[in-house]
């Protein structure tokens, strides 16, 4: 580690203890049970009888420092200055005095931050950078999230679903945000093979690395107008974008053909059934900014059909387990196409290898 200068380096994050509410410090590891007092409001009760109240508010995740300071002010006013963020990017205020819950909720509402996301709700959408900061995005992230959350808002502030419903969005197949295990996943996809920039490829990329990056072996070396470069066998490309990740000269962004796909039935928790991947529901919806109405409708439709048909405690995937995929497509009115049938590496393991059929 030749880099140890006078500069401070490798100090890691500050210890969390200094940021813990006194009641939490005192009752750390002593919590006995919790109650869900209202949507977005939790009360955790300790062996010692102490209680900590949590007020959870929705956040766009992309925050200006002005809003972060607003959260700080609210924390000073109502929760002794103590707050945290959740694994789904909501903000949680930690109160020792229940009388502060209502005024905090009012102040949050006035600044446009809804309280909710607990229990059998749709919580915040885990998402990624999109056009705000990423070069490989097939779509924007924040815009779709905003449009969808506006549409399912009542499921954030309410808790009337059969179970938790987790939505996630990733703007390309890299799937930052790990959408692959969500009740409903919104995934940005490319649909055209990369357009190779022969003029610059040799300058900005290692040709062997580019070739090696392709899972389907669609890339082979080629010499184009004298310059060493690569060519892509279009028919062999499934648009994963990995070549672009390793080689800037192979962009595959394409306004006409980039868009969204919708995946359903994944889960992460071990509750009842094992964790599982989301499965393809809709192969492609074109990008339609600024509010992506087709994507919003698709998500709302799935949510509502689920809400109407699932039994209590059934996550989306567990509901589909019970009714079967044919019924899912029938109830949602989504078309089943050849694209729904796996033909990648383990193709065949998802074919129906029994005579168990409903008619």
């Amino acid at each position, binding site marked *: 580690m030749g880099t140890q200068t006078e500069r401070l380096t490798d*100090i890691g994050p500050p210890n969390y203890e200094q940021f813990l509410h006194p009641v939490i410090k005192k009752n750390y590891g002593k919590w006995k049970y919790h109650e869900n007092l209202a949507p977005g409001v939790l009360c955790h009760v300790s062996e010692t009888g102490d209680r900590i109240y949590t007020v959870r508010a929705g956040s766009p995740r992309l925050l200006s420092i*002005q809003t972060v*300071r607003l959260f700080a002010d609210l924390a000073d006013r109502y929760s002794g200055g103590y707050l945290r963020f959740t694994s789904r990017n909501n903000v949680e205020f930690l109160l020792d005095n229940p009388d502060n819950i209502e005024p905090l909720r009012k102040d949050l509402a006035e600044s*446009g931050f*809804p309280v909710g996301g607990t229990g059998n709700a749709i919580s915040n959408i885990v998402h990624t950078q999109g056009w705000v900061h*990423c070069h490989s995005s097939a779509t924007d992230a924040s815009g779709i999230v905003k449009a969808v959350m506006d549409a399912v808002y009542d499921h954030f502030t309410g808790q009337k679903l059969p179970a938790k419903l987790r939505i996630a969005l990733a703007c390309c197949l890299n799937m930052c945000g790990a959408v*692959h295990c969500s009740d409903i996943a919104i995934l940005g996809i490319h649909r055209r093979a990369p357009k190779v920039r022969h003029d610059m490829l040799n300058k900005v990329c290692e040709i062997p690395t580019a070739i090696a990056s392709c899972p389907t072996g669609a890339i082979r070396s080629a010499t184009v107008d004298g310059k060493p470069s690569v060519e892509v066998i279009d028919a062999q490309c499934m648009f*994963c974008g990995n070549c672009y990740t390793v080689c800037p000269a192979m962009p595959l962004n394409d306004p006409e053909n980039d868009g969204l796909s919708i995946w359903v039935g994944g889960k992460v928790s*071990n509750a009842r059934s094992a964790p599982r991947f989301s499965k393809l529901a809709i192969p492609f919806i074109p990008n339609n900014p600024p509010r992506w109405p087709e994507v919003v409708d698709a998500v709302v439709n799935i949510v509502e059909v689920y809400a109407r048909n699932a039994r209590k405690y059934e996550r989306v995937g567990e509901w589909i387990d019970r009714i079967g995929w044919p019924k899912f497509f029938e109830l949602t009115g989504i078309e089943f196409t050849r694209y729904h049938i796996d033909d990648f590496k383990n193709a065949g393991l998802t074919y129906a290898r029994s005579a168990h059929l409903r008619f």
Partner: protein
Amino acid sequence: MADEMRATPLLDELEKGPWPSFVKEIKAAAKAKPTADDLLGQLELSYKEKISHWKHGGIVGVMGYGGGVIGRYSDVPEQFPNVSHFHTLRVNHPSGWFYTSDVLRKLCDIWETHGSDLTNFHGSTGDIILLGTKTDELEATFNDLTKLGFDLGGSGSVMRTPSCCVGEARCEWACYDTMALCNDLTHTYQDELHRPAFPYKFKFKCSGCPNDCVASIARADLSIIGTWKDDIQQDDAAVSEYAAAGLDIQKDVCDRCPTKCMDWDGKRLSINNRECVRCMHCINVMPKALRPGKEKGATLLIGAKAPILQGALLSSVLIPFVPAQELLETVKELVSRIWDFWGEYGNNRERVGELIQRIGMPAFLDAIGLDPVPEMVSAPRDNPYIFFQSEDVEEGETPGEEALDEAAVKETK
């Protein structure tokens, strides 16, 4: 700065509706920051053209670090000069994402001085994301951050910032101290976090129980999921209260138990704890009546990742149970063996889960010196293609060879 706002008719549509608007956030920052204002402009252009206007970054960063900064450059710098560079810093978050108003304000002040005024609380790996600044601000930002006691997160082929669920800080189900472990790991591996020495990225995520509130089984190369060995703690009085309060214990609890190991006779709930697979459902439904057992610890699972290249993976069981008090040491010891092997045999950009897929779990276990146990598999192999190892096989001979002759013409079956 940008006194009268630029026109953003498309993005303005996203200020409408009840959910908090990221556009409002960018506009708020744009009032003071030309960078934010140009971001707004470029984003409006992306909305119009339906395409990203960011280019691949070259490597940018702070002295002596191999990661923590994501370089981004506009591909339309002439239109939006203030975001011609627009790099983000990834900053280690405090375990559990706990803050005080005070420390948040200080972070804001630093970013106000050096950056775009825009942030993510948090990035999906868990870092604080300081969203967008120029190359020459990086070092200065870093120095102010370290003075405040913060440090950079990871990017590239390094260990990434570990994350954890709230755990014992605010959850009755935590089977080990997730925040302490997360913090210890982050501090123990600062060098691995800041200086690329791996074939690819490596992520830790710590969940206190099988509800897995940080989605570790889906997103972490090493997933540490709390569980317990003894019996579920049961409070019969509280069970009756739930029943009295109208909970249908048979239907909503017993019938939903994956192993059907619970029995409710209308008065008493009995659990066959040897059949229980620790799924948490019954506990989730009756938090006042049921709790994880007292003999607490965690299951270690390995190999989750996103789909690139060969398809997504969930982590799989490596060590079924490690007692809570032995967790840190066990993880460190195990990880050192895993990193040694992966470092030597992993291909470039091959996650540890992909390495295991490629060479097979048996070979991986041999390599890290772990004995196979049935808990590692959902079922034994169903194909007869067993690579018997030479030490298990005799040096054999094939008798009757002379008997083979050309009378045996080519086989057609």
